């Protein structure tokens, strides 16, 4: 029994020791807060088609990412986006998407996310994923973590399908812009796993 006590003490001490020793260091931001800020900031670079339902509120929908949603819930009520009051909607099913301008699908959503993304792609909605497989899921924007920064990649063909116009200001910040229609490539190579060991096949948008 003494060894199990030892194990427990060692574990707790590890957690405590490192917790206090480095806790005072200069702060970094929580990924959820940064993503929430991105979601609201993207709006100023997107032009939605006239066919997009006109509503009195600018709705950002979130699924599979409770922490990002919590952040937006704090942030959005104080903001106006495109001269409309901004609001958060936590969505579960395709029928929740009415009037939504931006849909964020977090990394924890799976099967349900697929049907949501499929439904949203047919609507003038800016779809944003956080998917290790990258843009292959069909979203317009995908978050990627590069070192300690959160970056994003943009698919122009997906934007075109959703009838969105993207300002070049957004493209110039993107880590990567996919310009060629995936066409056959998408059908044939949909099994391409996202691998950082593999150099990108699309044009790099360098940010020095």
């Amino acid at each position, binding site marked *: 029994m003494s060894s199990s006590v030892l194990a427990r003490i060692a574990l707790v001490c*590890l957690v405590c020791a*490192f917790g206090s020793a480095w806790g005072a260091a200069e702060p970094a931001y*929580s990924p959820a807060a940064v993503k929430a800020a991105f979601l609201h900031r*993207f709006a100023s670079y997107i032009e939605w088609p006239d066919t997009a339902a006109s509503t009195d509120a600018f709705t950002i929908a979130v699924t599979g990412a409770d922490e990002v949603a919590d952040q937006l819930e704090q*942030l959005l009520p104080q903001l106006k986006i495109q001269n409309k009051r901004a609001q958060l909607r936590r969505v579960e099913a395709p029928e929740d998407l009415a009037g939504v301008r931006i849909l964020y699908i977090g990394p924890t959503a799976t099967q349900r996310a697929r049907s949501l993304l499929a439904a949203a792609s047919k609507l003038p909605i800016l779809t944003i994923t956080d998917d290790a497989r990258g843009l292959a899921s069909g979203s317009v924007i995908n978050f990627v973590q590069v*070192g300690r920064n959160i970056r994003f990649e943009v698919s122009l063909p997906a934007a075109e399908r959703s009838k969105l116009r993207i300002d070049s200001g957004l493209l110039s910040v993107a880590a990567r812009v996919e310009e060629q229609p995936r066409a056959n490539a998408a059908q044939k190579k949909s099994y391409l796993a996202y*691998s950082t060991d593999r*150099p990108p096949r699309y044009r790099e948008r360098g940010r020095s």
Partner: protein
Amino acid sequence: MIRILHPSRFGLHGALAASALLHAGILVAAEAPQFAQVQELSRMSLEELANVEVTSVSKSAQSLSAAPAAIYVITRDEILRSGVSSVPEALRLAPNLQVVQVSAGSYAITARGFGDKREVQTQANKLLILIDGRTVYSPLFSGVFYDAQDIMMEDVQRIEVISGPGATLWGANAMNGVINIITRSSADTPGAVLRAGGGNQEAAASARYGGALGENASYRVYAKAFDRASLDLEDGSSARDHWSKAQGGFRAEWAAGRNSWTAQGDAYEAEQNVLGASDLSFSGSNVLARWQRSGESSQLSIQAYFDHSEREAPSDGAAFELDTYDVEIQHSFALGTRHRIVWGAGKRRHDYDIENVGALQFIPAHRTLDLGNVFAQDSIALNGSLELTVGLKLEDNPYSGWSAMPDVRLSWSASDSTLLWAAAARAIRSPTPFDAEVAELVGGTPFLVGNPNFRSEKVTAYELGYRGQLGSTVTLSVSGFYGAYDDLRTVEVTPVVVLPLMWGNRMQGDTYGVEGWANIQVTPWWRLSPGVRSLHKDLQFKSGASGLLGVEQAGNDPSWSGQLKSFMDFGHDLTLDAFLRYMSELPDPQQDAYFELSARLAWDVSPSLQLAVSGFNLLHDRHTEYPSPIGEQIPRSFFVELRWRR
């Protein structure tokens, strides 16, 4: 990701309660300022946002580019395009592994040396292999029955190959490396796939069907079977080691908000011919369940599995049966903005029953082995680009008790595209029944016996690595290692009377070497991947050692090996891929260096139908990879395959 758990033994209730208390405090403290953060962040420009630093979250494939270890990821793309049909053949694609085929179904695979030298009963035993979180090395001798391990190639997500110790996170046996085979989520494998093919060395067929069960659940089922022909002997006659196997399995997942559940299982049965000995039949089954709760900055996972395997030579009655029960918990979370903690605990029980026949006896023949571990690791962001990872695993095994395996890693993201890292870690291979309880008889008299005081084999490894992107078309990974080994297994004599011989721990020594690989996108349609590894071993007997069998008994390893993979896309429907590999001379017994080549041409006849022709071991009529007494040689082979999916 293997952790185990046993409440009564580890007093886990207490540990969990303590952790829950700690955790509750952290949540309260951490969340308040985060809402202040988002206000501040919302005023930033897009460009500023892209440059703010976040607390690191390491759980996806992406974060591998930031992992301070020598990791090579065999992608699904690589596996499919190489046309390989077995796990060991897929592992050849990793430049940091040493893969040697011995017979039709048997391989010697290791990282950083200490491979097989079968004539003195040395088998590669310092590698940990996991398939979807299930450990598959044999607890009887720490080696792997590769003929018992199979997966549906179509459904592999990736294979992570880590050379060097990975003991803190992965635990037992992760002494020289870890191989982590990860299959795809069932949500990613809808629809039907049928593959069928044949050639001069193999006939195989496989099928998978997957689909959704309502909005939140998905499943797949698969079945596969193959018949593999015998290797050759030197004179061109058959080595009579042909074998066949059938396997089936399933995976189902259900997600609800932050929670997800996974259940999966496999079952197989195989028959194998053995030249000059009894034929073998072996079978097995396993089932695994996992619950995972994910947040933006935390993840809790609890998993349990059961694995049964058995192997017998029906004509002479030798057999073993092994049941493994494993439970583990792993929790990772951000602590404040600087720390990323992973901790966990686990418990594993092996029950085995051996039918001892002939010269090799396990005494006792029936036994229960209980293993347990608890570990914690903290990744600390020292500043924007420097990260320190400190971890400790405590592990218990029935022979040598508790061992501590610490691990320290420092990584520096010198730029967006450059990572430099350094690591120091200690790892062990814990004693097995083969080390401690075996009795080998000659004429009914014990000739070699296990050593009840056998100690763990130990390594302290130091590594330095670079990983980066050069321009927009080249990625490069280079690492160097130095390993200080102690208590390696030797053969000792009984004082005064000499016999029986006994296993001991009287070898030590150093190894060092370099591993490197690159990806070069030569043109948009052509990618090249060269890789190379070198190994120098400098081993000595410790004082008091018998010196029997020489230090060469630690493994017959090549001093270097290299490979070059080429992937070409012609238009949208034609791919041509080639894989050239080189293995330097094996020293003792001596085996010449060789080059070998495989290639595959695939044509997408339509979006749902692919026709592929592969050639393996193309450079020689037949070649030897391992100089075994039987002298198996691997013949050139061809394989034609149709793949249909819908």
